[in-house]
């Protein structure tokens, strides 16, 4: 359980990135944080694993205040995958890269081997085990970064812009993967601009602008509200735009999903879906 209360954060250069954010994320929830550049999304999630400490307010992870424990301690519970994999890859082989965190956390040799095997298999990287991460493509590097975090099986997984630089196939695999993680009971938090990606996953949406939470709720509810998404510099999903235009003809407004849209349209056409 993550409980954020009246969180303010001002950077040393005086930029006020968060101005009173309160948010609760229950265990096993799937949340997407969206909003314009500079809205404070990354600043917010960096508070969850203690990389940033509140200027004012509190952040509790499972009842523990993040100011009271080190990042390394929190990291066991909260896995954070950074936007750019090149900010963390440094080892000679993919295998060593994945075992880095496990060594930091003091796992024994046998456990490290098991978990590395598991993570390699999970992200379809087994064939690259002995390859240098620097020789891999952008998408593969991203998967190595993801594997290196999932290897220690954190309870909460935070992904900062997971879809950037991924082709459609990789995105689809990533989506299935994230959904699977969430089904296994993990709390998943993604920070993203990718509206189409979100419409397919349908997480709870937290919409941010200017360091504050503008709105939060079901994806169908938030992402079809033209006025809200405009204020957060997010565009309506394409399906939502179509159904907005069709609203006068008696179509429902809160549709963002392709399958749902086809079902409604077929029904109108009088054909069985």
């Amino acid at each position: 359980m993550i409980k954020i209360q009246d969180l303010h954060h001002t950077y040393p250069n005086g930029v006020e990135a968060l101005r009173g954010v309160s948010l609760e994320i229950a265990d096993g929830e799937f949340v997407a944080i969206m909003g314009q550049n500079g809205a404070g999304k990354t600043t917010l999630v960096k508070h969850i694993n203690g990389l940033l400490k509140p200027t004012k307010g509190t952040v509790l992870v499972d009842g523990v205040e993040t100011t009271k424990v080190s990042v390394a301690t929190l990291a066991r519970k909260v896995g954070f995958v950074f936007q750019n994999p090149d900010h963390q890859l440094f080892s000679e082989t993919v295998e060593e890269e994945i075992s880095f965190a496990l060594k930091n956390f003091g796992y024994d040799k046998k456990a490290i081997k098991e978990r590395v095997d598991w993570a390699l298999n999970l992200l379809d990287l087994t064939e690259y085990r002995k390859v240098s991460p620097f020789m891999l493509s952008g998408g593969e590097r991203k998967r190595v970064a993801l594997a290196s975090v999932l290897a220690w099986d954190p309870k909460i997984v935070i992904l900062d812009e997971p879809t950037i630089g991924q082709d459609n196939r990789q995105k689809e695999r990533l989506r299935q993967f994230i959904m699977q993680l969430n089904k296994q009971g993990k709390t998943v938090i993604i920070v993203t601009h990718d509206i189409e990606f979100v419409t397919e996953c349908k997480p709870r949406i937290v919409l941010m602008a200017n360091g504050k939470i503008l709105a939060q709720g079901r994806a169908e509810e938030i992402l079809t509200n033209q006025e809200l998404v405009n204020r957060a510099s997010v565009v309506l999903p394409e399906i939502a735009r179509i159904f907005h235009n069709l609203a006068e003809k008696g179509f429902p407004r809160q549709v963002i999903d392709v399958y749902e849209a086809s079902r409604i349209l077929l029904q109108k056409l009088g054909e069985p879906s």
Partner: protein
Amino acid sequence: MFDGFKFRSVSSPVHTMDPRAKFIYVCALFSVAVMFNQLIPLLILFVIQIPFVVLAGVQKEWLRSMKGSAMFAVIIFTMNLLSLYFYGSYGSLPAIIERSLAMTVRFLVLIESFSVFFLTTSPDLLGLALEQSHVPYELCFAFTTAVRFVPVLAEEAQTIMDAQKARGLELEGGNFIKKIRNYIPILIPLIVNAIRRSLELAETMESRAWGATKNRTNLYVLKIGGKDIYLILVSAVIFVVSVYVSIYIQFPALTQLLVG
């Protein structure tokens, strides 16, 4: 310590001076500092720069650079003290202390003058000054780009540190060797990214016709003005007087003066 050398755009009489004049001033002070090894002249050199710092309005940053160099100053002092005590031919302990202090002040004088120079000279003007001093343009460009990318690298280093901390890396604690080892996961991505970025920069520059014309001209041209000449003259006077003093006048040691 970095902040004590980072250019901040403020308007002051020193900021608008020609970088070449300031460079001559730094060189003069540098050579004078190396010329003397007694404490009194070096202290004088240290003090006479303070009005210049105040005139430039960079006291805060200057103090920061001084604080940043404090640790090095202590190391220099201790090394001098130990080596002079065990291997030097100086007799008394006060004389050894004075000599070690003098070496420390010399270091501070050098840091002080360079810090003022970099604090008050924008990388662009510096590049322009180099160019007008007939340094090949490629070299000037490489130099100014290097200076300009320092803050970018500093920011990237912070992100990398965050990413590794999020994977359980503890940067604090452990013995000396452990501490150095801890920085490997930070240095490797930093260097790899810097190299990648430089290759990208080269490609984008080439695609924007970098180096297409042989004879480049500049929008702004540096001109030596009144106060620049004044600064050059002051530097010259300091230099000439110092050469004279170092040859013909023997500065008394502080310990001698105090003992009587």
